[in-house]
């Protein structure tokens, strides 16, 4: 009996870890793309919330989950474009532009939600995504059922990790992005448009953030609550630093966060009377501790936070 419970517990924990890591992986990859091109996108928390709201609203209206995900990605792209306009075209402070996007998107998400649904006593719900078991892999004892019975979006997130690595390190486009992020003057000299590259990275990154948000309202939960993101965007920013701007290492950070988040949910479910707030706090504390560990040897993209203006070369 004890053994069976243990196996079920581990399997469940593995499953929860994968699930809770998914939105962080999407958002972390989106942020890595933006930061590798030289732009810190603090709009991430708001973009995720808009993605979560849009995905839910569109699915509620049309009944199509994938259409909801698509629209969440598109809204993420639009907000990425707005971030690009402020921080790249106009060269405004990336810190403040990003926070502006987050504040604006947060307000807008609630505003649109209230406009559409009013203030219902019971939050409206949609039938969420169903989990898919991978053949063979999900039959591995103990860890298999948990790890390989997941939402399609989770598999997609994992697929995106090598895709992002290959894009950044093995393609010409990746070389351009990294050059723009490290030394925009050089990039400009060899004919790479700094503005266009950064804009593209913010737009694609925004799409990933939007999808990460939509996962929370269409798979993890089936409703939109005001605190659905709950700081996951900021955690993703921390994961980018933790992972030293590398997709794979960032994803490992996301997995650790997912593990703690999952453990917290499991222990709560098992009726452990540890105040669940203390458990909710641990991922954030550990993230800060992790940052202390990596910050001193961090290899920040050299031109991060610096707007690029041709007239001020070398400035």
């Amino acid at each position, binding site marked *: 009996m004890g053994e069976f419970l243990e196996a079920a517990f581990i399997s469940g924990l593995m499953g929860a870890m994968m699930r809770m890591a998914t939105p962080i992986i999407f958002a972390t990859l989106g942020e890595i793309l933006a930061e590798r091109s030289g732009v810190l996108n603090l709009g991430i928390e708001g973009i995720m919330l808009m993605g979560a709201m849009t995905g839910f609203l569109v699915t509620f209206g049309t009944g199509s989950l994938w259409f909801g995900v698509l629209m969440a990605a598109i809204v993420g792209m639009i907000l990425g474009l707005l971030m690009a306009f402020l921080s790249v075209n*106009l060269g405004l402070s990336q810190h403040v532009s990003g926070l502006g996007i987050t*504040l604006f*998107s947060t307000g807008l998400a609630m505003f649109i939600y209230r406009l559409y649904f009013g203030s219902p006593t019971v939050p409206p719900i949609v039938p969420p995504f169903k989990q898919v078991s991978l053949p063979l892999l999900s039959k591995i004892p103990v860890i298999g059922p948990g790890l390989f019975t997941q939402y399609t979006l989770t598999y997609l997130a994992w697929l995106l990790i090598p895709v992002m690595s290959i894009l950044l390190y093995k393609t010409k486009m990746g070389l351009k992005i990294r050059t723009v992020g490290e030394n925009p003057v050089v990039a400009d000299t060899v004919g790479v448009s700094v503005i266009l590259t950064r804009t593209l990275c913010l737009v694609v990154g925004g799409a990933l953030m939007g999808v990460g948000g939509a996962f929370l309202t269409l798979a993890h939960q089936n409703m939109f609550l005001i605190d659905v993101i709950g700081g996951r965007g900021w955690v993703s*920013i921390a994961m980018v630093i933790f992972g030293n701007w590398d997709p794979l290492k960032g994803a490992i950070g996301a997995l650790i966060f997912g593990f703690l988040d999952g453990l917290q949910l499991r222990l709560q479910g098992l009726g452990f009377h540890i105040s669940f707030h203390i458990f909710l*706090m641990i991922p954030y504390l550990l993230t800060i501790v992790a*940052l202390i560990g990596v910050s001193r040897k961090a290899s920040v993209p050299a031109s991060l936070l610096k707007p690029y203006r041709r007239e001020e070369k070398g400035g």
Partner: protein
Amino acid sequence: MIRMRITRREPLPKWARVVIPIAAIVTTLILSAIPILLAGGHLWKSYYYLFYGALGTRFNLLETFVKASPLLLTGLAVAFAFRAKFWNIGAEGQLLAGALAATVLGVSLGGIPGFLVLPVIIIGGFLAGGIWAAIPAILKTKLKVDDVVSTLLLNYVMIHIMGALLFGPLQQPGSSWPRSSAIIEAAQYPILLTRSRFHLGILIALLAVLVIWFINKRTVFGYRAKAVGVNIRAAHFGGINTTAVILWTAMVSGGLAGLAGVGELCALQYRLIMDISPGYGYSGIVIAMLGNLHPVGVLFSALFFSVIIVGAHTMSRMTGVPTYIAEVIQGMALMIMLIFLLFTEYRIKVVRK
């Protein structure tokens, strides 16, 4: 093809620094028509109730000051930190730290003379916010941890500390809700005007404007903080102890945010609840930027936002536009102000080529 070119311009005259925020506010109000119309609100009626709700009666006007008090304090907190380029996004957590300290003191100080209770609580709340802000300052200066990220993450840590305490030792005996016992009467801020909620905290916030203005303009510390903000390396080579400047800046900034928490607790709620702040710490960022990081500017932008927030409730009741319009307007105001500020330093030329 049309291209934008952004080039530096001569510094604008002083009047522009006043005109530009006003222009930003007017532009924001005009653009607010878009969400109002989207919500199906009648445009003029909506604007009318927005301002009537905030300024139309004596009670409403005084309520606007009540709302402005925490906004003013968090706005000052952020402005003071940003001026020294300490990116304090953690005013929300520091506010909660202040409210938490005020709760602990406010329920337990029954034994000391009444006139001492409020001073102890105010100092305690200031210190709690200040110490909570000192953590990211130390992480930044000693361990090179990015202050934006650490202050943000610490907000969530503080929310959960508060939650753990409100479900634990601070929970009101017999209650199943996450709320504390009520503070003692001597710990309540006095109401200064009858038939209103105009309380001591508003005076404290106004006093803080003067104090911050004085520190910025008339003290060596204010000069050093500015030097660190403009160029930290130059400040360092100029003999300024930049670590100490950042640490003290953070403490004062966090302390101001802590006072906002004390005010919310001791003047309005009288007991700690989870949603004691609807995001005043984050609004502080917008207010600081709109006020151009200047204490007097922060005063006016806090009042402006307070008008929007208080007025949005009346507008919502009368026209059905959701109250979250206040948040939308705040976000828009920040971005518009940013763009307008750009014009103070740069000119934008549209060139065809």
